[in-house]
């Protein structure tokens, strides 16, 4: 009990210290915060009413975002199949799956927006850097999921087919795959949904999709148009979430 009380006190002191340190070393001027009120009001004022004339751009941008998410997800699946096998305990030995898993953890640690910026630098503006960024970033998670799907398979039916004289490919098809398939489908849909959501903002760094218009309109002070596009993005996120909930009801 005593040590727990001390632990709680120490944690509290640590948090308080961190907050104080942040205030003391960052330029937080209260006066600026107060004078910002009217400016934010002005900003919001220029956003309403949203400009409905950008409907075309919204449709075009959304379609491109969808294409980026689809092709990026396809790339991630293609990369994740071999990497997932190489990261699974059941298929390969520790000298192989350990470094592959480390590599995947490393990929997961790099934020998507950073990858997208690097790719824009490498291949130029447009949807292509977005697709590459999504494929790369999503592989870190999807390959790990695939490896877990392989390792989660029950061994007994595989041994039973081997005992009956089935070869390795027949065992893969009739004992391993039927057990894996639902997990792989669920994980792939889950990752596609994340890809779609994350690709909405990729345009902000020039990597294509609907986010590109937000960036363009904000830069050219057309806040009413930026507001319309932002509302559309919010609508899309809600729609994706709704579809996801329906799918989950259907499958789980």
């Amino acid at each position, binding site marked *: 009990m005593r040590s727990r009380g001390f632990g709680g006190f120490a944690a509290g002191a640590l948090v308080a210290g961190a907050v104080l340190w942040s205030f003391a070393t960052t330029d937080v001027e209260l006066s600026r915060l107060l004078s910002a009120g009217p400016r934010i009001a002005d900003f919001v004022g220029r956003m309403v009413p949203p400009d409905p004339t950008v409907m075309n751009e919204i449709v075009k941008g959304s379609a491109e975002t969808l294409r980026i998410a689809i092709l990026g997800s396809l790339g991630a699946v293609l990369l994740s199949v071999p990497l997932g096998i190489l990261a699974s305990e059941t298929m390969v030995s520790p000298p192989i799956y350990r470094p592959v898993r480390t590599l995947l953890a490393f990929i997961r640690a790099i934020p998507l927006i950073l990858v997208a910026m690097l790719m824009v630098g490498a291949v130029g503006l447009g949807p292509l850097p977005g697709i590459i960024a999504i494929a790369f970033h999503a592989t870190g998670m999807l390959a790990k999921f695939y490896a877990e799907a392989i390792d989660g398979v029950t061994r007994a039916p595989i*041994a039973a087919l081997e005992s009956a004289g089935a070869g390795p490919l027949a065992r893969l098809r*009739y004992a391993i795959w039927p057990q894996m398939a639902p997990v792989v489908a669920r994980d792939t849909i889950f990752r596609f949904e994340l890809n779609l959501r994350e690709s909405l903002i990729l345009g902000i760094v020039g990597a294509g999709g609907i986010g590109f218009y937000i960036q363009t309109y904000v830069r050219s002070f057309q806040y009413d148009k930026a507001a319309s596009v932002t509302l559309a993005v919010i609508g899309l996120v809600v729609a994706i979430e709704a579809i996801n909930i329906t799918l989950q009801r259907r499958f789980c």
Partner: protein
Amino acid sequence: MSAAAQIGDLSFFHPGASLPALDHVSLMVPAGESTALLGPSGAGKTTLLALLDGRLRGWRGRVSVLGAPLDPDHPPARASRPDVGFIFQEFALVERSSVLRNVLNGRLGRMSPLRAVVGSPAPRDLEAARAAIADCGIADLAERRVDSLSGGQRQRVAIARCLAQEPRLILADEPVSNLDPARAVEILTLLTGAAHARGATVLFSSHQPDLARRFADRIVGMRDGRIAFDVAAGDLSDVATADLYRETEALPGIGLRAMT
């Protein structure tokens, strides 16, 4: 009398185990008959059956199955494996596949490799699977997924898969331990009857002396990895059975060691 399996001075340690699971076992399993392996938990029944199925490596002794010697260091040739059928204690079915698909899986070793992978069973394979399903009384369940079946129904699917394989030797690991007494009698009647009709040899393990007496021609008693007796079913005495299932002697030290 010919032998379906011949075992001479066989010993085996599971990896990392300090006591042998099989300890100088010698045994002859007569062809065309039904033999019961009787013995308490941990006697080594599963181990002996898995070894005869060619799944264990690193044993010592001489073992031949259906006239061909087993190699202690290598799995048997794939072509010979369908001749030995195995019914697993925990069924080992593919839960998400249908009953028919599971039974067809028993045919995979008899199909050409291409057919096995492409997944188009020949009429011959379908016929064997349907016949096995009918013999096991589960024709109306053929399209059901295994994960929707009861324990007794799963047991029938496991037996049907083995019969579809058309083995000459059937190794059944406690095929009725998960069932109530009436179901157990049904299943053993089915198994020994189907095997007899197909001219196959049966070696099944069991905890229950009365079932062994009723369904086996010979009864082999096992305890602590050794053969305790090997008698015709009619000659099994209650004294021998009681001795087979006696409690472990509470010698000072041993009881304690067993608990830790």
